[in-house]
């Protein structure tokens, strides 16, 4: 991989890289989140998307409630077992490659709700990439989680085909 500015090869210069590195560079800088907000953490998540914290600085502001176009699921809020099947189905509808952020104590481990209805951590039914503790976490913490996802994509990547 490198930059070639030889005038014989076009003059303006070009870049050589692998398809995989190029695709992952694109993925990492254009994460499309699927916001799965069920409780107060979702309010904090909206704060992250809004102008003060502005997740678009990381290319991840296209929050549409449409799993078919998303590659990052941000689960923010208490997940009950009744909601868990919905959450799992939405995750299954997202195309590969995809990543999951568990935002807040409830999604990480049930939070204060040690009850018959609440899932004690969404990793019971979803493969979580980054856990963000806090009740709710500060916007900076979610931004950090998105950056960790970016780092993960950069380091490990995902197959192109």
């Amino acid at each position, binding site marked *: 991989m490198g930059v070639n500015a030889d005038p014989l090869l076009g003059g303006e210069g070009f870049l050589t890289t692998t398809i995989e590195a190029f695709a992952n560079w694109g993925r990492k800088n254009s994460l499309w989140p699927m916001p799965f907000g069920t409780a107060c953490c979702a309010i904090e998540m909206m704060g992250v998307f809004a102008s003060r914290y502005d997740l678009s600085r990381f290319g991840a502001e296209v929050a549409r409630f449409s799993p078919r176009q998303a590659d990052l699921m941000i689960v923010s809020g208490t997940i009950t*077992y*009744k909601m*868990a*099947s919905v959450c799992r*189905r939405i995750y299954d509808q997202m195309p590969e490659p995809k990543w999951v952020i568990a935002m807040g104590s409830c999604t990480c481990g049930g939070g204060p709700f040690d*009850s*018959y209805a609440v899932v*004690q951590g969404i990793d019971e039914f979803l493969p979580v990439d980054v856990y963000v503790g806090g009740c709710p976490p500060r916007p900076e913490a979610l931004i950090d989680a998105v950056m960790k996802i970016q780092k993960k994509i950069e380091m490990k990547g995902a197959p192109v085909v």
Partner: protein
Amino acid sequence: MSFDVEQAVNLLKNEFPQDIINIKEYRNETTILVGKDKIREICSYLKYTLEFTFLADLTAVDYLEVKSPRYEVVYHVHRFGPECEENVRIRLKAELTDGDPLINSVVSVWSTADWLEREVYDMFGIKFNGHPDLRRILMPEDYGPHPLKKDFDVRNREASKESFEKALDDGAE
């Protein structure tokens, strides 16, 4: 004409002398213990004659190991003004014994009782005779236990997990 709690209680006592079991007054709150068999008649009298048009809440309590009969169904009814001091709120309670608890539904009196009675059925397993659609409202439809019963372990997630697995299978088809 002014209207107050005392008047409401007296009228109710005259109308249903057999079915008013006990009247308690505590911190300006009036609680009337009534017989469960006449609950619908008492409620329609409250609504249509005394103008208690608003059912503020309908819930239940499980007094397992505290007292017998085990359950109480609680009705909070409210009468609006027109004068401020004529706003009256009273609480009705009806006791139910353990083992297939059943009480007449008041959906025909206040239609808001529909979902409230479904919630009580969902959480306590108390059945409402004459309810138009007595299904679970909060827990999954195929859920077994009634979680607010005192003999249910609130940390028991097994039934929830079963419902979850089943919902996943149903969705995957």
